[in-house]
């Protein structure tokens, strides 16, 4: 008992006081695209992108597809693309995931506030997720990020959940279980898509082993990009949507 208290004292406290202000050191997050004109016919960034996240004229990067591999940043001869450590990348629709030259992050509308008030309970389902997004979502409630202080928590049963948080490209073998989990949730309810795989299929969007019909029938209310998602990106998106 005294040893536990002594350890508690020597370990100190590590929680991030202001999640909104935190900018993780070294993090490859929200891309900034300069308005510098591209060289004639240059397509270097588009060609190296593994998920076809980039379109040209005007240069646009789809955060819903981006795996943050930084190949475009290295390929661009004009140094137009730069990944900043800004974790604010969530959006309420797929249009909001498109980053264009000179774009600044926009807050998501407080769509959850009216029905769910100041607290949401979430059931996470990984459908082909590689365990990186899952580990990061677990980290949202560790002592550093401590999202529970804002009334956000993960629950074991879909029966107890307000929201379904999907990770992974939705493997065909998980499609039925995902649908069953959603059907088991009481209304009102919503879906949040987390990570490039869930949002767009990511690197697996052309694969024959995914079955993404579910997201065609239930549109997510919030999209949280990342590969994997950073806990702060998730925090910003959720707090925006909750109006906090």
């Amino acid at each position, binding site marked *: 008992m005294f040893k*536990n208290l002594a*350890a*508690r004292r*020597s*370990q100190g406290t*590590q929680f991030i006081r202001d999640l909104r202000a935190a900018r*993780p*050191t*070294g*993090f*490859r997050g929200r891309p900034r695209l300069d308005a510098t004109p591209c060289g004639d016919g240059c397509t270097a960034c588009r060609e*190296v992108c*593994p*998920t076809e996240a980039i379109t040209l004229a005007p240069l646009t990067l789809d955060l819903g597809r981006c*795996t*943050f*591999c*930084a*190949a475009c940043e*290295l390929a661009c001869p004009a140094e137009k693309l730069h*990944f900043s450590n800004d974790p604010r990348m969530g959006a309420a629709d797929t249009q909001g995931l498109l980053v264009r030259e000179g774009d600044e992050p926009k807050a998501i509308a407080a769509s959850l506030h009216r029905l769910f008030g100041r607290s949401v309970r979430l059931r*996470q*389902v*990984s*459908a*082909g*997720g*590689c*365990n*990186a*997004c*899952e*580990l990061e*979502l*677990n*980290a949202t409630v*560790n*002592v*550093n990020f401590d999202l529970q202080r804002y009334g956000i928590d*993960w629950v*074991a049963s879909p029966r107890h959940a307000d929201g379904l948080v999907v990770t992974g*490209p939705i*493997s*065909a*073998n*998980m499609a*039925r*279980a995902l649908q069953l*989990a959603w059907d088991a949730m009481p209304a009102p309810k919503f879906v949040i898509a987390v990570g490039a*795989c869930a949002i767009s299929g*990511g*690197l*697996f969007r*052309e*694969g*024959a*082993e*995914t079955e993404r019909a579910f997201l065609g029938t239930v549109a997510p209310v919030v999209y949280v990009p990342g*590969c*994997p998602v950073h806990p702060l990106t998730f925090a910003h998106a959720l707090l925006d949507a909750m109006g906090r």
Partner: protein
Amino acid sequence: MSATVLLNVDAADAHEDVRAWRDALLERLSAGHRLVTLYGAPHPEGVRVTAVVQDDAGELRASRAVVSAATGFHTLSHDIPGAHVFERELHEQHAVRIADHPWLKPVRFERGGGVSVDEYPFYAMRGKETHEVQVGPIHAGVIEPGAFRFLCHGELVHHLEIHLGYQHRGVERLLLQRDPRALAPLVEQIAGDSSVAHTWAYAAALEALTAHDASEHDLTRAVMLELERVAMHLAGLGGLATDVGFTQAASTYARLRTAAINGSMALCGSRFGRTAVQPGGSGVALDGATAAELLLRFEALDRDAREIDALFLGARSVRHRLCDTGRVDRYTAAELGLVGMAARASGVALDQRVYCEPWRGQVIATASTGDCMARAELRVRELHSSLDLVRRWLAPAPEWRRSRPQLGALAPSRLVIAVVEGWRGEVVHALETDAAGALTHYKVQDPSLRNWMGLAQAVRNNEISDFPICNKSFDLSYCGNDL
């Protein structure tokens, strides 16, 4: 470097006849070689099976033969139980007949395989006081999906049937659809908690195929690999602490893991070592000031972890739950072909790092009891020895720059096998090129593929309530198995 072997396809101990291949393989295995992998690839005359074995000195050898799928071969599993999962995969992926195999259950229920993951007939048990419990595919926590069917007698687990495949994304097929030199983002997602181990194996294979010397990046890669090990051992210990209800250790290990993965982020921009390993190059940048800062951070991490280790492993309540629970003895571990941390906890001294720079000559840490406590204690020891290594390597304040060189054409008609010791165990990548230098086959093997059977054995005759700690003590990957 990783343990890598590059072979001319025809020089790889090729057998005319599948029976001769099987006999020669069994002879090698009974002479003390260890089966590393066994897989099939399409061939104009049927299916080409490749077996890779390793001797005590770490040398890898491949032997192969072409079989007709309809004839197949007689199972090796009765002599070498660890081969069961390779043969199941061979049967599922290439319809090769495996005569007399005890249990040809699909490994991952690929589409078009005939059997649906939702309709598979599990083993059943009848009798007084017997019952069955189905868990999954969706679990109570924020983790990957997989299903477990327990056949119980009262509270005791008589048998656990593990039912995976829910995570199958068709990785191996996708690996053949893109430029083989640009596969790193996909390889990083084979098992997202082992990105460095998998990308290193991929990079080593590609460097062998293009005769590109990347040994200057060995140390950088080793730092990232050891940080991955530290982070995931901390995550696993935190999970174990949660499952036995020791919240102080659970929350402390979780925040210590944050320190480790933020160290990775400082080096390569990702908390999971994404982009750290590039074929022929490196995505890690380091200057003197960052090295000094990381050294201080890891020193504090080491000190704080030691304090909580002592509390956690020393607590009577923890010892009560973990000691003698989920035991796998050394004989069973070796027979099942367990690898990595799970094998070492049962006393099998197997660690690919001792064959490679910069670890060569290191002593392999093992435990003897093979229970949940042994796996927890071993992870504690490994995380501290990994931290020691990282600190030793960063102490001279090396300067590292990012580089992504363009690799040349792949050598034609080659088979290359690369093995890297990730935090779970050995990650194996086998790549093959045709006469034109095109990549024709990419076999990925995560250590989880072999170790799931270890978990099934570990829970036998344990209380079903101890399953969560048994499962967490093995800490296996679902997507790594399901690909």
